[in-house]
């Protein structure tokens, strides 16, 4: 476990290597990135097995977080120290890795999905003139994301947080010849930055209170009551702001759909499985802070998650762009994870994070495969692709069924856990709305699946072809996980304590299946698929009739609830007006008065005062005499 830091470092080394040596290497150095992340994946298993074998005190870095808490292994190295040794106000900055069940779970997800996506990219990005740069940024992203997961202090986490942001920016704008890609990249970067400011302030607030960036110290302070309720809640909400930006939660969700301008594997890795869950990860990681003082902050988390999940699920139903359907579905599921965290469903959130990560990465790769085969992105132009792209169709369907919540597949178990947590710990209103989200989730997944792959093969799609092996194989691996991952949640008495027992940090939490909730969720999921099949497969109901019946609602949803318009208005009417005022202030006051003012004064003074320099000897002599006389009088008066 002490070598866990190598996992991100290998990818970090790969990135500049590809940039420098890539052009001379075969495949523009793409295999360097893949080797680095593959080695990371292998090392993950080593770390995992060592972690399972570790216990409190052996190795000495490992301790129990609390009486019933999980094992936490913290390896840190001093980075630098400011102030004197042992002095109260000295600041000691460390960086290191923290390994606990949450880290292990995330490590597995990120290394595996990154590996799959990078292999897939070999096929998808084949022939791109900037292939080397693509893989370099991919490697840098993998390194940053793994650092984010492994970080044992908030400062390192923040650094990694910004690094994944810049990698996301670079990859969204990868095809920067297209104006839309440039705009989307800027939008993603700026919108997430707004949240990042909150995160930074939150981290600084914690630092002010605790005196160190260390996470464990902050959690200790929050749970032991050393931090007051107001500060703890404020810090939690500020961290939540950062999480909302990164995880595209309402009202910061607008950047994620636009981020689909990037290459599809990028969407699969960054905007579905890994980077966007960083926000969920942050809330989960800082859960002791959120949970302290009866978890007041968690109510906000739940509300944000629920609103996000509802709004984006609605938009996903009417979206016609395959990638955007998946993007809105991602936002919706991120909202569900947040909601779950907000309902004290820690295990459920992490479980859903993993299950969703595999399934959504698979769906994006499937969408990429479809776009690769048909060069089409609009689902209205697709149909019946199962006949020409059977493998893609099958794995995509597995992903869709899993996310839709069809039993036995991973998404069913994780969604059920979330429903459980919400029904236990939150107001009945929450569970009703969450069930609605579950239904809509099944419906839009079914819609995407039916419209794209089933029914009549569309005219003009005869040329479509199945993707090469290098693309289908990663999808198959992901499909296996998306289908079977749910089974690890069970408790096998005497053998395995179940995912809940492994990851939950308070106490061993066995998997529990609530039959009422379970049956309702099964009925809703199947109902969603059945209804979608009526609409899109058998065409018993026409979408036009719905549109005629409630035009205002459909219109509002199709316009994405006018968020982009509202933000555009705010930017034009508020931000630009304020910035114009600030610009005038800067020009008139800062520049003209504060900077040019002193210079101008000195210049004017010089022009005026130089007139006394007549150049005539007698005027100087006269001044000298007068000065002498003045001095003599002064001394004389003083002596009297």
């Amino acid at each position, binding site marked *: 476990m002490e070598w866990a830091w190598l996992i991100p470092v290998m990818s970090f080394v790969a990135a500049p290597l590809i940039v420098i040596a890539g052009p001379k290497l075969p495949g523009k150095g793409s295999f360097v990135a893949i080797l680095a992340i593959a080695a990371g994946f292998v090392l993950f298993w080593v770390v995992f097995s060592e972690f399972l074998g570790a216990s409190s005190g052996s190795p000495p870095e490992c301790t129990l977080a609390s009486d019933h808490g999980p094992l936490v292994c913290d390896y840190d190295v001093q980075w630098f120290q400011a102030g004197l040794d042992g002095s109260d106000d000295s600041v000691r900055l460390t960086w290191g890795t923290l390994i606990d069940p949450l880290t292990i779970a995330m490590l597995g997800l990120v290394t595996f999905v990154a590996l799959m996506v990078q292999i897939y990219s070999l096929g998808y990005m084949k022939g791109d003139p900037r292939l080397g740069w693509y893989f370099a940024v991919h490697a840098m992203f993998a390194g940053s994301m793994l650092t984010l997961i492994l970080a044992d202090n908030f400062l390192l986490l923040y650094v990694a947080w910004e690094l994944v942001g810049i990698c996301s920016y670079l990859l969204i704008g990868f095809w920067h010849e297209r104006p839309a890609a440039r705009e989307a990249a800027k939008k993603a970067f700026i919108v997430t930055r707004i949240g990042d400011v909150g995160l930074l302030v939150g981290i600084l607030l914690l630092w002010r209170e605790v005196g160190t960036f260390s996470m464990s110290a902050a959690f200790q302070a929050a749970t032991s009551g050393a931090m007051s309720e107001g500060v703890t809640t404020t810090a939690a909400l500020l961290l939540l702001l950062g999480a909302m930006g990164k995880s595209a939660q309402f009202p910061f969700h607008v950047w994620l759909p636009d981020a689909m301008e990037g290459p599809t594997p990028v969407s699969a890795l960054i905007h579905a499985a890994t980077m966007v869950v960083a926000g969920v990860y942050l809330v989960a990681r800082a859960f002791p802070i959120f949970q302290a003082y009866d978890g007041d902050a968690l109510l906000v988390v739940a509300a944000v998650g629920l609103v996000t999940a509802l709004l984006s699920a609605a938009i996903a139903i009417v979206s016609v762009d395959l990638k955007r359907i998946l993007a809105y579905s991602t936002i919706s599921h991120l909202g569900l994870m947040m909601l779950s965290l907000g309902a004290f469903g820690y295990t459920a959130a992490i479980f859903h994070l993993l299950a969703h990560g595999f399934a959504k990465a698979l769906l994006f790769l499937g969408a990429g495969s479809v776009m690769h085969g048909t060069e089409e992105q609009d689902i209205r132009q697709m149909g019946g692709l199962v006949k020409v792209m059977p493998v893609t169709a099958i794995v995509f369907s597995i992903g869709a069924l899993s996310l839709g919540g069809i039993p036995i597949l991973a998404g069913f178990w994780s969604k059920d856990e979330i429903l459980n947590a919400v029904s236990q710990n939150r107001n009945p209103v929450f569970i009703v709305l969450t069930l609605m989200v579950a239904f809509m989730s099944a419906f839009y997944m079914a819609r995407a699946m039916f419209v794209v792959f089933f029914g009549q093969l569309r005219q003009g799609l005869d040329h479509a072809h199945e993707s090469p092996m290098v693309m289908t194989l990663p999808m198959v691996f992901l499909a296996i996980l998306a289908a079977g991952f749910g089974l690890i949640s069970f408790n096998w008495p005497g053998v395995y304590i179940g995912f809940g027992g492994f990851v939950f940090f308070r106490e061993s939490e066995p998997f529990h299946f609530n039959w009422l909730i379970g049956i309702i969720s099964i009925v809703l999921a199947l109902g969603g698929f059945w209804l979608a099949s009526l609409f899109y497969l058998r065409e018993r109901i026409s979408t036009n009739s719905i549109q005629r019946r409630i035009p205002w609602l459909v219109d509002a949803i199709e316009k994405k609830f006018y968020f982009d318009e509202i933000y555009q208005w705010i930017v034009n009417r508020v931000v630009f007006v304020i910035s114009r005022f600030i610009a005038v202030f800067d020009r008139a006051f800062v520049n003209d008065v504060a900077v040019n003012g002193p210079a101008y004064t000195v210049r004017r003074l010089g022009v005026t005062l*130089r*007139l006394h*320099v*007549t*150049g*005539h*000897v*007698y005027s100087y*002599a006269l001044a000298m*005499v007068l000065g002498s006389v003045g001095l003599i009088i002064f001394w004389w008066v003083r002596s009297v």
Partner: protein
Amino acid sequence: MPLLYFQLVSAGLFAIGLYGVLARRSSVLIVMSIELMLNAVNINLIAAASHMEGLGKFNGFDGQIIAIFVITVAAAEVGLGLAIILRMYRQRGTVNVDEIDLMKW
């Protein structure tokens, strides 16, 4: 003779010199006026020296020695001053200080 008389003569001489420095245009006359002021100082010094003999730490020679120094320095100064005036005349064709205003802004 009381010291005051010498001091009055000295002060008068100094005032005449000062007036000459301030009021004359010709630099030669200014140098001569400076000489007047120096000699006024010399008179003052020697008179004070002869009157203060035996008073405290004064031994009657201090003033005379300083006066001789002043004369020496004044001689050097006149040599230098006249050389400058000569150069000035060669360069600008005048010794009138009104027209020498190179140091003006």
